[in-house]
């Protein structure tokens, strides 16, 4: 960096810091980001660790709730069984003429009045599990409601097996050899197909193994309709009937022990009936990663950053005025007389506004995520834990989002030279796509907007993962974006780069 550019930077920094309104604005942006994050607008009922989620072997928060009939298996061995039938009960039809606005509304659990049916990920099959403690490691081969035969292990892993209908009987086999578990399936009990072999590190010598059934929450989005966002749904249950059970290896003596792991204690919806060679299991819940939003529990740190929008509007106004005020007062002519190389003026302004915004946003986002999380928890809202790396990405990403938005606004200010046009274009270009996506537009159109407009960068704030094996309403309002974080950042970078390029070209060519 030459001394000339250093002086230019210093000049631009002086212009910025000596306008009281702008400094006030930067402080207001920081206050807005933090203020909205700790707003007491959220409250929940998770006091005193009442709804702490178990964590799986790799530390992910998981849903671990199912019914099974098990015996102890020491050393290697296998279990084979025929799933004679898989049936289930769905919640009552959510009353088509009853609009369900105002956020998630999970109807009261009235399983007795449900209608027959299976959710796509209702599961029944064989399981080998490190123990009955919540979050214990496991491997399972299962038949699902509509997703065919699957082999799943340790909550987050899912391998597809052959397609199979839940209407036909299905043979399943699970074999333990050392710390690997192999799942097989067969349509007739004689021709077997291997689904997958998985490794469960640290699997103890003695494991609990047997048959299980579970069925996740039924979730239905009503958000495709104008102005009404929300989710309908309720608990479901699945019943699997097993027969022709063959257990080989070091199994404990005795009959299959019915047991229920996790979930609320309402006995009528769960149970395992052992009748000679026939075992019938009814379960409700899931063996899967825990998600936030409609189908899950609580919220994520993403929701604490809603103030980003307020900060964004303020930052955009300041960045635009950083240029348009010079045009308005004719100061631009002086600036250009002092620095004939106009591209460098733009560069210096970019560095100043970008740095000021980035540093301010970084500090306020870090404060919001840490303090906001504590405020939410004190209000009884369950906040999903995230890895340190994700937390850093969300905080730095928020700062990058605001800094890039400020540079985009600056470039628009140079291009349009009028506050009114530049502020409106910048705010509407970034905020409006998000607003339309979360309020008015059908889900697909909204996701498309969040892929191609500068608002794509909000993907940087996503803090939890989407799992195909968990049905949920993965929408921006619940903190799920259509693009991965870095792709979203790239989209905003591209828009900013384009605007800067046009601004530099126009600045060089036009009169001041």
């Amino acid at each position, binding site marked *: 960096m030459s001394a000339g550019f250093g002086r230019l930077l210093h000049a631009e920094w002086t212009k910025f810091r000596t306008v009281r309104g702008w400094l006030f604005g930067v402080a207001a942006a920081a206050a807005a980001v933090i203020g909205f994050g700790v707003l007491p607008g959220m409250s929940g009922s998770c006091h005193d660790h009442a709804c702490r989620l178990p964590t799986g072997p790799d530390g992910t928060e998981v849903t671990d709730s199912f019914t099974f009939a098990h015996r102890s298996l020491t050393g290697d061995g296998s279990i084979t069984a025929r799933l004679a039938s898989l049936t289930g009960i769905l919640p009552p039809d959510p009353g088509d003429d009853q609009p369900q*606005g105002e956020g998630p509304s999970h109807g009261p659990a009235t399983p007795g009045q449900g209608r027959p049916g299976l959710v796509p990920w209702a599961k029944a099959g064989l399981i080998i599990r490190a123990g009955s403690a919540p979050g214990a490691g496991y491997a399972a081969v299962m038949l699902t409601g509509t997703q065919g035969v699957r082999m799943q292990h340790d909550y987050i892993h899912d391998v597809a097996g052959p397609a199979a209908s839940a209407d036909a009987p299905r043979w399943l086999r699970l074999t333990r050899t050392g710390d690997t578990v192999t799942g097989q399936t067969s349509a007739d009990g004689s021709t077997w197909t291997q689904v997958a072999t998985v490794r469960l590190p640290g699997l103890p010598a003695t494991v609990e193994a047997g048959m299980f059934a579970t069925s996740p929450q039924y979730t239905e989005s009503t958000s495709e309709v104008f*102005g*009404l966002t929300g989710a309908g749904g309720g608990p479901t249950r699945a019943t699997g009937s097993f027969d022709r059970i063959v257990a080989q290896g070091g199994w404990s003596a005795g009959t299959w022990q019915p047991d229920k792991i996790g979930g609320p204690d309402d006995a009528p919806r769960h149970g395992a009936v052992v009748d000679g060679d026939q075992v019938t299991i009814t379960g409700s819940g899931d063996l899967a990663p825990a998600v936030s939003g409609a189908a899950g529990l609580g919220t994520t740190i993403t929701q604490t950053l809603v103030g980003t929008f307020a900060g964004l509007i303020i930052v955009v106004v300041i960045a635009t005025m950083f240029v348009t005020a010079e045009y308005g007062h004719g100061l631009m002519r002086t600036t250009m007389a002092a620095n004939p190389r106009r591209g460098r003026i733009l560069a210096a302004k970019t560095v100043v506004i970008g740095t000021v915004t980035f540093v301010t946003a970084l500090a306020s986002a870090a404060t919001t995520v840490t303090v906001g999380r504590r405020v939410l928890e004190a209000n009884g809202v369950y906040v999903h834990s995230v890895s340190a790396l994700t937390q850093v990405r969300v905080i730095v990403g928020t700062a990058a989002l605001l800094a890039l938005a400020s540079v985009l606004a600056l470039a628009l200010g140079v291009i349009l030279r009028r*506050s009114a046009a530049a502020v*409106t274009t910048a705010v509407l270009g970034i905020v409006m796509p998000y607003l339309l996506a979360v309020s008015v537009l059908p889900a697909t159109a909204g996701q498309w907007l969040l892929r191609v407009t500068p608002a794509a960068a909000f993907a940087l704030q996503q803090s939890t993962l989407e799992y195909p094996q968990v049905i949920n309403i993965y929408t921006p309002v619940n903190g799920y974006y259509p693009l991965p974080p870095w792709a979203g950042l790239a989209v905003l970078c591209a828009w900013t780069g384009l605007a800067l390029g046009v601004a530099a070209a126009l600045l060089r060519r036009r009169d001041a």
Partner: protein
Amino acid sequence: MRTALHAEWTKLRTSPATIWLLLAAVTLTAGVSAAAAATIPCKTAACLGDPAQISLTGVQLGQAVVVILAVLAVSGEHATGMIRTSLTAVPRRSTLLAAKAVAVTGVTMVTATVAVGTSVLAGRLLLPGSGYTAAHGFTPLSPTDGPTLRAAGGSMLYLCLIALLAVGVATVVRDTGASIGVMLALLYLVPIVTQALTDPDWKRHLQQATPTAGLAIQATRHLDTVAIPPWHGLAVLAAWAAGALLAAAVLIRTRDT
């Protein structure tokens, strides 16, 4: 007052930005409305869509243009120093403010009539294609239908009140960029924050107490589930506009220019 009004009308009429902004307001409002009417589906007789509301979706974008128009009519004079000339010519400052408010409202009303009329027409033509058909229990949009007339006429009033609120805010803030920032925050930030809240009470209070409560005037179905009844919502916006104009009247009298 008549001469002041005539002067304001001349300023507005001869500003090169005005005609483009008015065209933009009509195009954006009708365009977004038509896009919404063409894309928001109604698949069953039990669908929750509100045809009038859908066909007036564009008002949510058109209001931004109205804001620019109203803000520029005030802050443009502050930026150029023209305000000093204006106040010399019309020494009673509240008269000047009133004249500006009336001129901006008049222009907005004409624009809103065209924009809303086009939107309703587009809805009438496009909504049946999206499933809002007689088979699903919908009649074509018609201004002779009471609730539809209320939604359409109310949307015009809504845009006028937004313009008045913007005149008030711009008179208080005086800077173009900052005024537009304040207005856009009021109009677009609140819905986003509201979406993020989980506490239903807070959510409802925010929906009831902020300027965008005025959009409730567009609801024609499921009136038992809305946060605020249609005319109450418009009254809330009217109160905001009155408050802003009052603050503007006090400040324009007491401040130097």
